[in-house]
């Protein structure tokens, strides 16, 4: 039997076996941001240890920065302290930091692929669960905690046990108006928010093969929302075309050798999987969440489910909690639900393709009165592209607040947050209770197309109807 990409990468990066039986795994690339790193540096200092391979760590600032005004000092002194700590730590240890003035700052999961730092066949970690994103490039990428950040800084390795691999195949052609986000939400709905425990998800099938890189990044980004610590897609010509010419990608003669090497990591045709799931692409609708876990989702034509629809007693309880928190009624159509805020951005949907897809649809139209609409490019590079292509202006003209790059309203560590029990049509990744900053705030996860439709109509809407997509 052949091997999966996961196993090949794992074997190529294995240092040895630790006394407790875990693998000591070499980490090719370590990404860093300001929230989960300061304590790791403090631990290093306590142990009097240097950073072993500073050239393999890349840092940026994303979670805490304001997106309206990034002049310093920041209004929030705690945010300023965190950025100062990152700057100090990076300087002290010789780590590259894509700071605000670099032109390359952005959400860590945008910066890696955009700069060509994320490459196939690598082990990539970051103190951030959405590190799964980088698997879209054919890497084995996963989120880690702060103590593990310290381990990587000190030793460039981690103590890990391998995951099982589930091949999730989406076969066929996606229907018009159905995006990578809808595919991801649908998969999570099918397999459950805990369905991926113990697994890496290898996404494949014709719908994934035909998906562009930005969509693949969105899909792998959400692997963790289905409990798969790691999601990946085998590298192919689209991957190589995406990487070619990026600042940190191999150049000249090294490029051809790198491509050959990268190809060798793709799962073999006869690779052995621990599980295989096949999902027909045609069954996927534009999808939206109704509850407080990403698997609580339905197609746009669906209705809010009843606790009686739950698969068991525990889910039933979870449905009751969710309905109460969301203030929704079983049987109520999700379409037509009024929204207060629309947010397009985050490491899930803050990419150039997301803004390119929405811009022509909203050109010449206006955000509905009373709706606060935020468009937040995920990185400075993307922001600049959006300016150059006239996309930013289209958003501004439509009544969106066009913001500066950062995590923004995904997670409430900066000034962008919901107020009271506002409902947000959000392209982010988590609809957890309180996630968007108000302990009673309500999040509906959806694609950029659906969020744009919600912004224009003030209600949850089917983007195919609002934008005549057929």
């Amino acid at each position, binding site marked *: 039997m052949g091997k999966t990409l996961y196993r090949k990468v794992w074997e*190529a*990066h294995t*240092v*040895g076996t*630790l*006394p*407790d*039986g*875990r693998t*000591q795994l*070499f980490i090719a*690339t370590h990404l860093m941001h300001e929230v*989960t790193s*300061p*304590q790791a540096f*403090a631990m290093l200092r306590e142990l009097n240890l240097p950073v072993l*391979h500073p*050239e*393999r760590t890349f840092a940026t600032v994303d979670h805490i920065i304001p997106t309206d005004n990034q002049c310093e000092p920041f209004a929030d002194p*705690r945010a300023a302290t*965190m950025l100062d*700590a990152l700057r100090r730590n990076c300087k002290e240890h010789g780590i590259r930091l894509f700071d605000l003035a670099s032109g390359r700052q952005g959400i860590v999961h945008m910066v890696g692929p955009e700069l*060509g730092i994320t490459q196939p066949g*690598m082990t990539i970690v970051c*103190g*951030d*669960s959405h590190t799964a994103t980088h698997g879209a490039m054919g890497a084995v990428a996963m*989120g*880690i*905690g*702060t*103590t593990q950040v*310290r*381990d990587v800084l*000190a*030793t*460039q390795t*981690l*103590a890990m*046990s391998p995951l099982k691999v589930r091949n999730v195949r989406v076969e066929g052609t996606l229907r018009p108006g159905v995006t990578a986000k809808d595919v991801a939400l649908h998969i999570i709905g099918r397999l459950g*928010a*805990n369905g991926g*425990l113990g697994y890496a998800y290898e996404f494949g099938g014709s719908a994934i093969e035909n998906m562009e890189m930005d969509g693949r990044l969105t899909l792998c980004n959400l692997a963790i929302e289905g*409990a798969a*610590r790691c999601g990946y897609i085998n590298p192919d010509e689209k991957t190589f075309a995406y990487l070619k010419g990026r600042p*940190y990608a191999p150049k000249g003669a090294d490029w051809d050798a790198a491509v050959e*090497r990268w190809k060798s990591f793709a799962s073999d045709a006869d690779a052995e999987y621990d599980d295989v799931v096949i999902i027909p692409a045609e069954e996927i609708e534009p999808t939206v969440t109704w509850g407080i*876990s990403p698997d609580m989702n339905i197609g746009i034509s669906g209705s809010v489910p009843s606790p009686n629809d739950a698969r068991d007693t*525990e*889910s039933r*309880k*979870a449905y009751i909690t969710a309905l109460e928190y969301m203030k929704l009624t079983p049987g109520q159509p999700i379409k037509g639900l009024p929204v207060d805020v629309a947010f397009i951005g985050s490491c899930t949907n803050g990419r150039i393709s997301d803004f390119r897809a929405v811009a022509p649809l909203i050109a010449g139209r206006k955000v509905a009165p009373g709706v606060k609409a935020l468009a937040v490019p995920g990185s400075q590079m993307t922001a600049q592209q959006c300016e150059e292509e006239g996309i930013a202006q289209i958003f501004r003209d439509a009544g969106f607040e066009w913001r500066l790059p950062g995590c923004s309203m995904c*997670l*409430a*560590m900066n000034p962008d947050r919901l107020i009271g029990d506002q409902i947000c049509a959000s392209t982010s990744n*988590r609809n*957890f*209770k309180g*996630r968007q*900053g108000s302990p009673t705030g309500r999040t509906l996860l959806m694609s950029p197309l659906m969020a744009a439709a919600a912004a224009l109509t003030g209600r949850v809407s089917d983007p195919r109807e609002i934008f005549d997509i057929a």
Partner: protein
Amino acid sequence: MPLNKVISISGKAVPVPGADMDTDRIIPARFLKCVTFDELAGTMFHDERFNDDGTPKGHPIDAPQHAGACIILGGENFGCGSSREHAPQAIKRSGIQAIVAESFAEIFFGNSSGIGLPCVCAAREDLLAATALTAEQPATVWTVDLDSMTLSCAEATYPIRMPAEPREALMQGRWDAVVELMNAPQEVAALAAKLPCPTL
């Protein structure tokens, strides 16, 4: 610095029921605006426990009968969501020494094991029974024992599960991996020389 061997934890338990107890609920993001873990004691499950105005919501953690509990009885997919180590740090620094749940999210599990906070799985019916018993008799002293792999009290004993490697690491007092990770410098250097590094 030698680490403590984590073998057996005994004390009162507190139920934190519900599936998919995510790390945003364990510790809301606003508490992450810090550069140390030192101030996290008492923040665990903050918004589950308190209203906006600071008044208690009546969460079991704040019930006088559960005061001083050192074992959490949780549900399915406990600790899902963000990789923030602040979550297990807040739990540990709030006096909890073990978590028993139906299942754990991977990253949370790893983060907890790495700071010497054992997370063990129990069958749903056993957890429900233990939770019911704890609700009825909050003073019940439970023992989470990694040697016998049981959750027990005077009235009942339930089997618990944990993967072999972290269990071994906890029981031997080697749960902080960094020391062992430094034992193979030559092998690491060889891989570093061989494996590509992104460069300009």
